[in-house]
């Protein structure tokens, strides 16, 4: 990989890559979020009370479920397409299916978290 980037951050943010680019960026954000979650989890295992309190916070859970679930579901699509190259022809369909699955799973997870947060 080259060490020089010829694309500025503002240009990159304005890039109209549509669906595939959106999944690429969300996958990275999700992975970074899960890395933070992993760190909080390790600190919680070490007995840091504030980290365990953070893990129990509903807002924290919402943020990590939204991004973490996307990372997991998008990762499954990437793995399936990687291991079955013939399916790459249908990658846009796969992304559409992924969005449907994601909305259903994340919607249910958010419903459960918010219901618990409101004492339901």
């Amino acid at each position: 990989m080259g060490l020089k980037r010829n694309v500025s951050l503002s240009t990159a943010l304005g890039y109209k890559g549509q669906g595939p680019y959106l999944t690429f960026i969300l996958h990275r954000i999700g992975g970074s979020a899960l890395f933070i979650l992993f760190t909080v989890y390790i600190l919680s295992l070490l007995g840091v009370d504030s980290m365990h309190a953070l893990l129990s916070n509903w807002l924290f859970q919402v943020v990590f479920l939204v991004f973490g679930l996307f990372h997991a579901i998008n990762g499954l699509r990437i793995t399936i397409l990687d291991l079955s190259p013939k399916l790459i022809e249908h990658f846009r369909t796969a992304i559409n299916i992924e969005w449907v699955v994601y909305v259903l799973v994340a919607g249910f997870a958010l419903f459960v978290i918010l219901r618990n947060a409101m004492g339901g």
Partner: protein
Amino acid sequence: MAARTLSIKKRGFTFEVFMWAFTRFTVIAMYGLILAGILGALSLSAQTGANFGDILYWAFFPNLAENPLGQVWMTVLAKLMVIAFVLSACGHGVHGVLEILDDYFTSHLARRWSRNFIITYAVVASLIAMYVIWTK
């Protein structure tokens, strides 16, 4: 778009190919462990009468919850599965974070130190997780 079908032989066995395979295999292991974990926890829940949520909570936070499983083999199996999951997640995450950092750090020195840091972090975090999960 035409399908890309390049055999493993033609790809060669470079560091990139190894890490690609490693990342794929660790993520497949994680999906397998998630599925096995949910089925196992449901099964143990049915056998012991313990709450499904309590079993998963204790499995991931053994330092914060009482063991809801009565038998030793159940406890050992659950601990081994959680350790395997944490190690798979850590291995998978190391490569992912390195890939992101490589995109933003452009000098050789920054890349080298980011690699040193993230690999050291992964090893230390894995050791802590294994120790706490196994001993508590």
